[in-house]
């Protein structure tokens, strides 16, 4: 236990006068407190502490009012995982995350590769593609709610092009509501992926492609073996953001379906708000919040460990490290 303390370096005491550095150090401390203090207070008070308190609340059966007395241990967690609705909510989040990777990613890579040319009106194109990303999820939700009304715009359009057989109760059919929401999400977020990948493509040196072409590589081979590997960091970051976003999905679901019909589009976050704020199950809702947090956190850690490790540069890679 009592390891001998290493000998203290003498240099400092020998070289510097004893008075001034300590005053300077005091001043530095004051400056640090002044600069860092307000941000830390704000961040701790409204981000960290509430999350910590959520862990605490999650151990109680509590309606948000009155004294916090009914300690139930991990009962809220057991109840959550014991219920089919919450398990379904987790599954829905996972389905959205998987669909994003399987559908949105190849789609945005393909489109970005096609657009990575000296096309006329490129600036305009980028702005248009990015526009849905800038709209709030609330506005996006309302737009699509109106378009997807029974016998509304989307149905009419499908009939107009001879695909009337596809017409569905887009938001009222439990079998397809999740996929409808996914289409809306794709509309909103595809541009983000495309812009990100186009920025990544600009980092691919043209000489590399030319060299590959000189060596007789086809366009596809060049793309497959030269361009895509160099896009790796961008793709890995996109996947990270996309999965975290899928896990936290709320606004769109809440406005378009409230998690319905019959919980077919419930997500962890909508389940949390439903129980916490509509049914005043604050303890139970907090347990759900902690699970949501844990899922995001574990994913981030694993992803950092196994996927992002190779990208040395980049702020997000250091986030969880």
């Amino acid at each position, binding site marked *: 236990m009592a390891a001998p303390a290493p000998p203290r370096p003498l240099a400092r005491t020998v070289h510097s006068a004893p008075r001034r550095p300590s005053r300077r150090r005091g001043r530095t401390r004051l400056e640090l407190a002044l600069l860092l203090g307000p*941000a830390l207070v704000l961040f701790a008070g409204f981000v960290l502490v509430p999350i910590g308190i*959520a862990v605490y609340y999650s151990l109680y059966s509590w309606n948000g009012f009155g004294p916090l007395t009914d300690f139930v241990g991990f009962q809220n967690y057991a109840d959550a995982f014991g219920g089919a609705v919450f398990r379904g909510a987790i599954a829905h989040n996972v389905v959205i995350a998987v669909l994003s990777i399987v559908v949105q990613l190849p789609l945005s890579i393909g489109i970005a590769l096609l*657009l990575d040319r000296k096309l006329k009106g490129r600036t305009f194109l980028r702005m248009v593609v990015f*526009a849905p990303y800038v709209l*709030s999820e609330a506005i996006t939700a309302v737009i699509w709610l109106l378009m997807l009304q029974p*016998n509304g715009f989307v149905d009419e359009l499908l009939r107009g092009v001879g695909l009337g057989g596809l017409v569905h109760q887009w938001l009222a059919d439990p079998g397809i509501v999740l996929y409808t929401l996914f289409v809306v999400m794709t509309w909103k977020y595809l541009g983000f992926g495309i812009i990100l990948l186009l920025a990544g493509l600009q980092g691919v040196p043209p000489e590399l492609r030319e060299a590959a072409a000189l060596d007789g590589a086809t366009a596809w081979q060049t793309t497959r073996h030269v361009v895509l590997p160099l896009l790796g960091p961008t793709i890995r970051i996109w996947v990270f953001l996309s999965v975290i976003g899928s896990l*936290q999905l709320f606004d769109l679901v809440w406005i378009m379906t409230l998690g319905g019909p019959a919980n077919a589009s419930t997500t962890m976050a909508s389940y949390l708000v439903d129980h916490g704020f509509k049914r005043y199950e604050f303890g139970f809702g907090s347990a759900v919040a902690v699970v949501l*947090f844990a899922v995001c956190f574990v994913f981030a850690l694993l992803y950092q460990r196994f996927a992002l490790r190779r990208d040395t540069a980049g702020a997000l890679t250091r986030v969880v490290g």
Partner: protein
Amino acid sequence: MAGRRWGLVAGYAAAVVVVVVTVVPLLFVVLGGFRTNGQLNTDPAGLPGPWVWNNYRSVVTSPDFWRFLGNSALIAVIATVLAVGLGSMAAFALSRYAFKGREAVYVLFTLGLLFPLGVATLPLYLWLRQLGLLENPLGVAIPEAAFSLPVTIVILRPFMHAVPGELEDAAVLDGASRLGFFWRIMLPLSAPALTTVAVLAFVTSWNAYLLPLLVFNDSAHFTLPLGVATFQSQYSQDTARVLAFTALSMVPALGFFVVAQRRIVGGLTGSVKG
């Protein structure tokens, strides 16, 4: 050569498809606002005929829309000022001071990138209730600022770190204190990065839905996203008017985006690429 030409054709084809898919829903909303409910019912995908200005007029002349707009602007401005002000101070401390626990504090902030607002929302709500900040713009603006701090610091710190030390030494030789260096040299030098983080904080707060939903009960305090969603459910029978309302609600976001486009894209790709 033929390959390159085909590539160009494919590029234009992809561009057209992407633009059409992106724009059609937006056009549906804008044009739908110029139609009547009768027109919308009989021919949901048609063009206005005749063009009706009534829906837009009723939205523009109703106080609701402008109040929502004002509330959103107020909250977004407060959140942005707080996030950028406090965030730049913290980023300066974390990039130009050597002290014990510096990396730990930085990691603490960056961890915030992972916390969804939803996780903190129940305690946050009780906390705001206790502070008397429910039904108060500050009750949304302050937490929004807190949740914007991580990305602000993550973008600003490397930027401030990259400013050469000689500049600081020169300033100190000229008699500037460290805080004087921060205020008079570092902040002006960081203007591009500050604009980026300001734009990001503003857009995030402007688009927020969950927090306003919880904090505001009285529609007089609603922000635009909350207002749009409520208006939609309230007037669901009057689709044409909801379309006009939604179309006008898109204007500030899209207009702001056109102006700040490079900052938004640059900030996002920058924050991703480090």
